[in-house]
């Protein structure tokens, strides 16, 4: 047995055991699951720490600073401020980087969402209703789409009680929302089953050589 095949076989066995540990949760909480869960959390936290260093902190901070690009001192300072949380006395300084992140994040969201979810969605809702030259069902579909979007939006009116006309339209909106939820659910079922098949194939074929 060469080192490489040993590696592969050993790795497969670890993978198989951990897979079974996680599956055991379906029966009930048990020491095997608890073991796998804690290992899982520890390893993934360590993984992210290392990954963060090599893929973010090093190329985006240390390398540019080593090349004397001083504009990177600001993120360095903010990053260090973030760590002041560790000493309670000056912990309030960590609010600065947090404010920076929340502020720039919010600013980006304002324009991104107005552009992609407002303007673009309006545009894709504007479809010709003119029956000439189109089969009747295209027209019908476009009308249904329109009714669905408008009534769905009315459901989200907060400053009006859902009574009278508003209530009626909002009710139609709920119908569309419910159909949409049901459909999305049904659409996903098959993909989820393939995930399980993938896992079982790993166990039965690659590990046990069963099939």
């Amino acid at each position, binding site marked *: 047995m060469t080192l490489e095949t040993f590696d592969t076989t050993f790795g497969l066995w670890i993978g198989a055991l951990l897979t079974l540990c996680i599956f055991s949760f379906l029966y009930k909480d048990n020491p095997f699951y608890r073991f796998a869960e804690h290992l899982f959390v520890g390893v993934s936290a360590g993984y992210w720490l290392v990954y963060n260093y090599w893929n973010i902190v090093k190329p985006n901070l240390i390398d540019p600073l080593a090349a004397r690009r001083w504009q990177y001192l600001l993120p360095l300072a903010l990053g260090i401020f973030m760590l002041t949380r560790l000493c309670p006395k000056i912990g309030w300084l960590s609010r600065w980087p947090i404010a920076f992140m929340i502020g720039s994040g919010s600013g980006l969201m304002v324009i991104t969402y107005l552009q992609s979810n407002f303007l673009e969605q309006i545009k894709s809702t504007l479809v010709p209703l003119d029956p000439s030259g189109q089969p009747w069902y295209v027209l019908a579909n476009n009308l249904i789409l329109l009714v669905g979007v408008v009534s769905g939006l009315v459901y989200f009116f907060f400053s009006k009680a859902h009574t009278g006309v508003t209530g009626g339209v909002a009710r139609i909106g709920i119908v569309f929302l419910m159909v949409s939820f049901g459909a999305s659910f049904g659409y996903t079922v098959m993909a989820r089953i393939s995930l399980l098949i*993938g896992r079982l194939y790993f166990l039965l074929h690659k590990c046990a050589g*069963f099939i």
Partner: protein
Amino acid sequence: MDSVPTKPRRSLVDRLKDIDRRVIFVFIAVAVIIPMVWPIGLSLKASPPSRALFREVESLPRGSVVLMAFDYDPATEIELGPMCLAFLKQCFRKGLKVVGLALWPQGAQLARASFSEAAKGYNVRYGVDYVNLGFKAGGIVVIDSLGKDFRESFPVDVDGRPLSDLPLMKKVKNFADIDFVMALSAGDPGLPFWIMIAQGRFGRKVGGGCTAVSAPMLYPYFPNQLVGLLGGMKGAAEYELLVGEKGPATRGMDAQSIAHAAIVFFIIIGNVFFFISKRKQKLMGARA
């Protein structure tokens, strides 16, 4: 994860209505495992896109060169891996030469495994009948560069051997020497780029395989830009059927259909029990 403790003296219907979820779990597990171990071979008819792909490859003369793209990762291997195996077996049986490459980083390793698995039982040699060029980042740019010279993006193969040492690559310079392109793709970069460049710009025949989720988006390319398409596990199972090699997809497809049926069945009985108990409650209410 125990179920909610049940009150004593509940009727059978009530108890079935709030069945312990672990019972459902067992049914699902059985519905998936049994067909995987003992494939049933539920009647499956190859759809036109799968059949078209099969016929196209069958019609290629012996010695033709097929370029195969492994643009996926382990997460989608269960869907795309079986397609790849069935397709490679067809190529090896027909005496076609296969050049593999990957636009996804983990594709190169998957290609290595697939080649060695498919090569079992066929008299094929690495370098002569098939090569694995490995991974190259860049997506559409890489595909574009193949039109000029393979060596631009892939100066060496996956193990670092220069292409000049590989007999097969001596007669393959660029797209002009490729007779067929087969792209297995799980997303971006993937099949649409191959269609755009290899088919659109260089006029190569392109076939493809994709996940079930992205199949509806790619079907419209068939048959004008794509000579054939395999969609998800179903497409893979169809191809296994055509090639005559019942493999993992046939098993998986059986498992998927039966598990799906099990869920449908549970939804139906859930509603039946629900209505029975509702009617009973109504009757009891009327009596009281």
